[in-house]
């Protein structure tokens, strides 16, 4: 895809996605082969009401579980329009990330399982976190990044979760959101999925936490959004 076509495509996808999520899904599938559709899940606040996008504070990190009830995702409001961008994988292949959604197209979401070695936020710790521009990572010496402090992989959430530095082979897996009639929905994932490895690696932990492994793997049709600091006892920054 050349630059001109790419920009044109991004523009069309972004515009039409505001109108029709089914168009959006079809477009992504056609262009990338990295989009995977899951149950459409409405994002809710703690009271169980549809999440009001304006309640998402800029610079804060929020968590919800999608597409499975045990797979965490980070939800961010970057406070400015986040434009679509092309994500390049280390094998040279690419896919198109649609950018932000919401009234300002500033809301984005990524799977919070580190694509390097699967660290993820648990109720005890969170090693993978978002660092806003005004609270930069000391190790990375930069903000506006997602960093996993276990092995120091650094990702750029404004560019579809691409790897900026560190050992991760893959970008963050994007959670594809739509914004329809004032409500936010998650509709699928975009990128390299590692859910199978995640479930294999944490089988016994998930069984303990969700009482049964089958329950941990249940797909969701709604997801409650809370601040990471509320969900996790200790957020570990580096």
């Amino acid at each position, binding site marked *: 895809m050349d630059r001109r076509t790419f920009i044109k495509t991004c523009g069309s996808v972004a515009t039409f996605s505001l109108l029709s999520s089914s168009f959006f899904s079809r477009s992504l599938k056609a262009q990338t082969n990295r989009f995977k559709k899951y149950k459409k899940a409405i994002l809710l606040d703690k009271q169980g009401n549809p999440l009001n996008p304006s309640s998402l504070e800029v610079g804060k990190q929020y968590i919800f579980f999608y597409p499975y009830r045990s797979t965490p995702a980070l939800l961010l409001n970057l406070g400015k329009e986040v434009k679509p961008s092309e994500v390049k994988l280390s094998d040279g292949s690419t896919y198109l990330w649609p950018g932000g959604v919401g009234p300002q197209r500033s809301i984005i979401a990524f799977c919070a399982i580190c694509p390097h*070695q*699967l660290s993820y936020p648990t109720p005890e710790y969170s090693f993978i976190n978002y660092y806003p521009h005004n609270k930069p990572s000391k190790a990375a010496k930069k903000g506006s990044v997602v960093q996993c402090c*276990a*092995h*120091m992989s650094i990702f750029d959430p404004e560019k579809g979760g691409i790897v900026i*530095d*560190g050992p991760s082979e893959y970008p963050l897996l994007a959670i594809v959101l739509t914004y329809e009639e004032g409500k936010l929905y998650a509709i699928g994932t975009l990128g390299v999925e590692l859910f199978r*490895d995640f479930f294999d690696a944490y089988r016994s932990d998930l069984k303990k936490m969700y009482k049964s492994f089958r329950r941990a793997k249940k797909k969701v049709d709604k997801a409650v959004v809370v601040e990471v600091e509320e969900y996790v006892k200790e957020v570990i920054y580096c």
Partner: protein
Amino acid sequence: MSKKSYTVNRRNFIFASGLGILAVSVPKSVIFGEARGNRVVVVGGGYGGITVAKYVKKLVPESEVFLIEKNPMFVSCPLSNHFLVNLIDYGELCFPYNNLVVKYGVNFVNDEVIDIDLHRREVITSRGKIKYDYLVLSLGIEYDYEENPAFKEAYWSFPPAFKPGSEHLYLKRILDSFEGERFVITVPKMPYRCPPAPYERAALLLSYIKQEGLKVHLYFIDENDKPPIMTEGFMKAYEDFYKEDATYLTRTKVIEIDPKAKKIKTTKGEIRFDMANFIPPMRAPKLLEKIGIMKKGEKWVKVDPLTYETKFKNVFVIGDSSETYLPKSGYAAHSEGKVVAKIISSRITNKPWKGEIVHHAICYAMVNMKQAIMMEVEYKYDLQKKKVKKFVYEDNTWKVSTAKRYYEWARGLWRDLFT
């Protein structure tokens, strides 16, 4: 990942579980048939070897990968210092190889390599010859008693615990029963396996001694000028925090050890001890010299530091045995394994790797029972531009959160190897 690679391969499973029975009647002839262009033989089932075996199969499921390892079970050296001071159980360091066989279709051969014929492309094990197209040697280290024979006799009484397994178990046993007052730890001159490990061990033991209220003085005898990495973080321990409990002797070489009389003679005088941990000099295993990949007198294998390929085409040496940009450590071997897996996969499929090659290592080290320090080093190599970018970062501030990251660092590695 193809569906096929997740299927239990009965043939592989038989190799893995029943080779011993089969092998009794097998003469030293070619076993497992001829190599057909896509066979990768990996010798050494540590951090590097497992990584290559798994990732080649992930990248090229139709490849034929053999992992030859003399031990039936993997035991981790990283985090073994934690075990010595009761921070973790030994069982947490042990992992079976079965997922490599069942999930990825690697042929696990539980056997010892006796010889390798680099010209005929054969690995000779105690049960027969295995042909290869690509060979990866990830053999770790040997203790170098020729460099300093003083350590040889001391091994039996005070094991170094720098090779995973029974050395740690025995060292722990004698540590637990130790009641004396004078403790000695020695550090060989760099390079050796895991540069921060002796310094972490000393700091952890001092912290443990304090915690238990024991009256023990540690003589820390170091052949180097200072801790080679995370210097500031470690020096804070020896010069400040544990000052009264430890004597840190730098640039001090061990001349003689008398394990019976419990005396050690060094270039800075003689020290009596009640308990010791003698860490000898190290080198690449002599098998590598025998097969001609290393010249006589050389300690480590010279490889292309960006690809780990030796002077023999399609023969790679990774991990502690080779001289590369990265320090000798389990994490580095793992990182090197990933690089080599990509290179081999691209050669098998005849599709040159287009992206960057990342050589990355992170080390964490405890400075007491609760806090840790860390360092990161990264070399990025652009295969097309042929340029290397280096990045180094150290965090020498003692932190509890760094200790938590340390555990997660190890668990992540184990997840990557065994999931």
